[in-house]
């Protein structure tokens, strides 16, 4: 598991970031004693550092420069300042990426993953299986007993989400948000249309009853 060190002086943001990142499956630690930040970085040797620029004592830029003297750990700047000068300075002093507040959470996670060279594809296998139905993420097909069915990108993402949450009730809004995070920008009605098409395809494969509708709550497989 990757260890992320948060260097941020705003307590609430630090705490919430910790919750967010540990929910996303990272091991998280943070700095509270800003006088001895460097010693802590040395002793913890994190896999990635989230660094704010305005800090008590040494500011983020000079901290990053000091870190670069003994380590190549990826540094992601997160800051409220967003002028071109700030960005340039952050990157020339050895920072690896720069995100300005208020940041969008999926984007933040994507950048972290990119820096950890641990993209989505590497994390997951190319096949997902549920109840005898196989979803091939590379070919975009659904297969039951060797019988195959082509899926569109949207349909594949929807099934993907269902397969990752077997037995759970999936609220429609969660599904829409998941799709938006995967660059499919559709509304509630379009989602209904897609679910209908998926059901038809499943029916053709003889598994028409797979997706159940929970009135007022969402879907469930």
């Amino acid at each position, binding site marked *: 598991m990757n260890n992320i060190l948060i260097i941020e002086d705003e307590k609430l943001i630090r705490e919430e970031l910790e919750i967010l990142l540990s929910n996303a499956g990272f091991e998280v630690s943070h700095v509270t004693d800003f006088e001895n930040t460097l010693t802590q970085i040395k002793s913890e040797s994190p896999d990635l550092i989230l660094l704010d620029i305005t800090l008590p004592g040494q500011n983020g830029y000079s901290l990053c420069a000091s870190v670069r003297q003994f380590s190549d750990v990826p540094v992601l700047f997160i800051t409220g300042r967003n*002028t071109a000068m700030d960005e340039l300075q952050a990157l020339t002093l050895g920072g690896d990426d720069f995100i300005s507040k*208020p940041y969008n959470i999926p984007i933040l996670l994507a950048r972290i993953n990119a820096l950890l060279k641990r993209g989505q594809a590497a994390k997951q296998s190319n096949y997902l299986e549920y109840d005898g139905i196989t979803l091939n993420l590379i070919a975009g097909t659904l297969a039951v007993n060797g019988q195959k069915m082509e899926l569109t990108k949207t349909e594949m993402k929807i099934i993907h989400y269902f397969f990752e949450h077997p037995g759970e009730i999936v609220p429609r809004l969660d599904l829409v948000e998941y799709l*938006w995070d995967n660059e499919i920008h559709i509304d509630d*009605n379009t989602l209904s249309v897609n679910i209908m098409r998926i059901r038809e395809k499943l029916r053709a494969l003889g598994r028409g009853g797979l997706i159940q509708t929970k009135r007022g709550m969402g879907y469930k497989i």
Partner: protein
Amino acid sequence: MSFSRYLSDKRFVLLACFAGSLFFTMLLWLFGLEIGEIFLLWICFILMAGGLLLWNYRNQRRCLRHLRDVMDALDQKYLFAEITDIPKSELERAYFKLMKTALKAMTDEVSQSNRLNLEYREFIEQWIHEMKVPITGIQLLCENNKSSVTRKILTQTEMISQGVERALFYARLGSVEKDYLIAEVPLKECVLAVLAQNRQFLIQNNACIHTEMLSGTVYSDRKWLQFILNQIIINSVKYQGDQPPVIDVTSQEQENYITMSVIDNGIGIRESELGRVFDKGFVGSNGRSEKNSTGMGLYLCDQLCARLGIKMEIKSREGEYTTVLLHFPKSEFLRA
């Protein structure tokens, strides 16, 4: 200054000359001089006086023309008194002194208000950066505790964040030249980032956005470009029609341009108002009727586009659609 005006300025001198010469003519006539001789004296006098006046007129005109040239060459006209030569005549010198005092007061006033303006702008920027901390806090809190309430709070927070951003960009508008980083920007990436920023707002509004036909890269500043796109997409959703908003973002490559178009199915803009949408503070019938428009969004976009070398164009039919076109020039030497 024309010669007749000059003469009218000198009318008292001329009158005195005329009166004096009449008096002397009488005197000379009483002494018994011939009419012919007196006539000769008259001609001599007129020639002398006329020559003197003409010479003086030309001098003054040359001097004025010189001053006018100095003024034209000057960037800050109020610094005129500092640049120009000190005049020789006593009257002119007195005028000059007065002018210098007046302009000095003016210069002080200008630099004072410039300073205040800059301080105010810096304060606004600082304040906005401070505001971003609690906004980020709210966003993280809501993301970590998802419910229908926090989703609504997130939508509102996105709107606050947008408003704050707009204030920041307005404060910076004067110094775009100092704050940009031109890089290769993939259009699609830029649009996706804007959509991600406004995810809750767009989902809550049942928006459907197609970006499949979008491709190509342009050379521009990502931050400013995102701000422009943000305004355009928010407008499309804000001025939606009876149908839920459907927005098509596409790009076409032409010989010298890459054109990005954002097409929506909103209420459109009246033909009579189409020409004025970029004016500062212009709130059309759409803005007046329902939404809290400020008339600043498109004005800022237009100003920014002009500074970034992007041509912005709006087409619309009332009640049907609005299309915003952004033409990005392809640079010859960047392509090489």
